[in-house]
């Protein structure tokens, strides 16, 4: 082994000739999104160029969803400037989007593995029904929540066992679960019945607002934490994230969140309303906390890395010593757990649970939201923020179309507010997103 030193010398010798060995063109495609530690100094221009390079390489991320949001807001804003761009509609629209967003975050776990959970909507429904019936039976809030989440975890463990251990394709298992869980939901709420929720905490999650003071405190706290994490990340990046980028990002956050909070703190009720509505909708900080917590799980913990690895190359993950079955099993449990949070959102919106909670198009919209946001159905690619962006797109479409309503376009009378048009537009949006996913996959493969 004495030759190691010699080797090191000969190996090291050529390096001084070349001041930046092999790094003259810096690729920080990950740096922008996650956590690069590359030791190259990047200027703002480099970062911009790298982003362009990455996009041209086919890795569009959530860019299509952001573009869709901008385009939709522009179209609806021009068509219905008074109603669509009103603060009241904005707050309502966030409430409409919230439950789909949370369930989309839930299914992201199994989508990352290339699996699917068609029954996540009913998992949400069942756990919401458990919560509602426990509260109706006079249980205090915390035990009711524990019961609700406990049931969700059991459902997730059941699904995960059948997929990971027994080896049934997730599509088949969760297809059966759609019927199974729907049956459980019907038994809990009694056919056609509805269970009212009279707990203010639950009812205020969707539809409730913070006071104006609370709104400012939450906003300042949020921006401060964002700035802190950005500065820390910059310090750990050894120059691959330029400080100017951090300043721009934090500056945008300060302006954006400040403007948002100031607007939401205005009264947005109709003039005829008995009392004013002002303050930030509670769903905003709730979803922000969920996104941050779940993104932390995916990006900074070993378990998250395993999810991406198994989704990217199952065999490679297995050979690397990762317990693939356990990762897959627990992914379904995570999906059920987050779906249960989505169930609370669903119940909170209407202050009750019935046999339709989590049914109908809930799950389809959630999966659609994740995919529109840029999460791949093929596994291995996706982020929590995608669920939020995609969920906003899918909520914008029916909201805006509903406000446009009956219009004459090119001589035809079209009712944009009809369910038919809304479904067709949402379906087309999903198809576009799936095409982008498939094409970018082709390009990067």
């Amino acid at each position, binding site marked *: 082994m004495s030759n190691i030193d010699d080797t090191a010398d000969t190996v090291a010798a050529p390096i001084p000739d070349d001041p930046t060995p092999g790094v003259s063109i810096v690729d920080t495609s990950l740096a922008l999104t996650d956590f690069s530690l590359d030791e190259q100094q990047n200027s703002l221009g480099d970062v911009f160029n790298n982003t362009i390079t990455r996009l041209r390489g086919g890795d569009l991320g959530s860019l299509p969803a952001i573009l869709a949001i901008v385009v939709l807001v522009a179209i609806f804003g021009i068509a219905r400037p008074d109603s669509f761009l009103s603060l009241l509609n904005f707050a309502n629209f966030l409430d409409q989007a919230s439950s789909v967003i949370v369930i989309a975050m839930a299914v992201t776990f199994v989508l990352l593995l290339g699996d699917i959970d068609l029954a996540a909507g009913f998992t949400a429904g069942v756990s919401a029904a458990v919560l509602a019936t426990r509260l109706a039976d006079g249980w205090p809030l915390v035990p009711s929540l524990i019961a609700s989440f406990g049931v969700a975890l059991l459902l997730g463990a059941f699904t995960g066992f059948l997929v990971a251990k027994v080896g049934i394709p997730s599509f088949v298992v969760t297809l059966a679960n759609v019927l199974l869980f729907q049956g459980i939901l019907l038994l809990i709420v009694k056919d056609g019945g509805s269970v009212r929720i009279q707990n203010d905490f639950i009812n205020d999650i969707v539809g409730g607002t913070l006071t104006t003071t609370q709104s400012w405190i939450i906003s300042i706290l949020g921006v401060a934490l964002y700035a802190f994490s950005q500065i820390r990340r910059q310090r750990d990046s050894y120059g691959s994230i330029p400080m100017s980028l951090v300043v721009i990002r934090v500056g945008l956050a300060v302006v954006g969140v400040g403007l948002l909070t100031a607007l939401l703190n205005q009264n947005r009720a109709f003039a005829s309303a008995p009392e004013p509505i002002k303050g930030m909708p509670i769903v905003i900080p709730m979803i922000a906390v969920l996104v941050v917590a779940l993104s932390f799980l995916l990006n900074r913990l070993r378990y998250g890395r395993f999810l991406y690895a198994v989704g990217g*190359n199952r065999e490679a993950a297995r050979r690397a010593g990762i317990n693939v079955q356990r990762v897959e099993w627990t992914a379904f449990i995570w999906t059920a757990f987050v779906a249960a949070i989505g169930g609370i959102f669903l119940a909170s919106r209407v202050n009750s649970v019935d046999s339709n909670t989590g049914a109908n198009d809930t799950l389809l919209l959630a999966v659609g939201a994740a995919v529109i946001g840029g999460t791949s159905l093929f596994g*291995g690619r996706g982020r929590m923020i995608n669920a939020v962006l995609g969920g906003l797109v899918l909520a914008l479409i029916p909201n805006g179309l509903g406000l446009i309503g009956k219009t004459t376009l090119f001589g035809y009378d079209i009712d944009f507010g009809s369910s038919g048009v809304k479904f067709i537009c949402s379906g087309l949006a999903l198809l576009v997103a799936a095409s982008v996913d498939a094409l970018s996959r082709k390009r990067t493969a």
Partner: protein
Amino acid sequence: MQDSSSPTSAHDSVGGSTSETVAPLLEAHGINKSFGPVHVLHDVDFKVYPGRITALIGDNGAGKSTLVKCIAGIYGTDTGDLQFDGVEVAIHSPKDAAALGIKVVYQDLALCDNLDIVQNMFLGREIVRRGTLDEHAMELAARQTLASLSVRTVKSVRQLVASLSGGQRQTVAIAKAVLGNSRIVILDEPTAALGVAQTEQVLQLVRRLSASGVGVVIISHNMNDVLEVADRVCAMYLGRIAADIPLDGTVTRETLVELITSGRSGAHGLVNGVAGA
């Protein structure tokens, strides 16, 4: 090769001389392995020397992969013993093999396209600090490993593997195997899918690997690669070792091909199914 590929005196002495003074790092003796009625390995003796490149050649079905999998702990052996560093060892699982520092780079490389180079190299053995992934430590270690192999073809260790060429992928797979404690690296067809320039890159990497004292085993169907890079060659024929000879310049491509196709060539090879000198 004008570069750092053969920098050590120990390494140089191998090329010219047939005498092996170095003790083998791994010595497999009398290995037999059957799958049901099929007797795949017959009394196989196999040695890996530190700082040397041993080529394992043979036709499809000759038993190369089975032998490698026995050494790597994927298959158990029926009879026979393994000595590592002169000590008798039992390898029952890939974990046992990895603990001894025996690493295998399979032909399919087993890389995750959706992860970057560092993430791939540390897959399954991530460095965790205070509960979260220590990206900085992992990146430094990955960088050092790549530097120790003089890999300069990769732009950034944060590149996604999906964006790498075939040769770069092979490089990452080898670096992944070398990371941490590695004494023996077994490469299964490392140049099979590569172009000329990339093949050359990988072969240089293999030379540097052995120059650092690692025992390298290279399975290859490409006799040019074998003659170019290997110090000795083990030819397998129908589950037996047909010849275990140093590549001293007298061994030609034809000899190797004959050994592979008929198990015999001139003075080398099997005599009536028994290994001769």
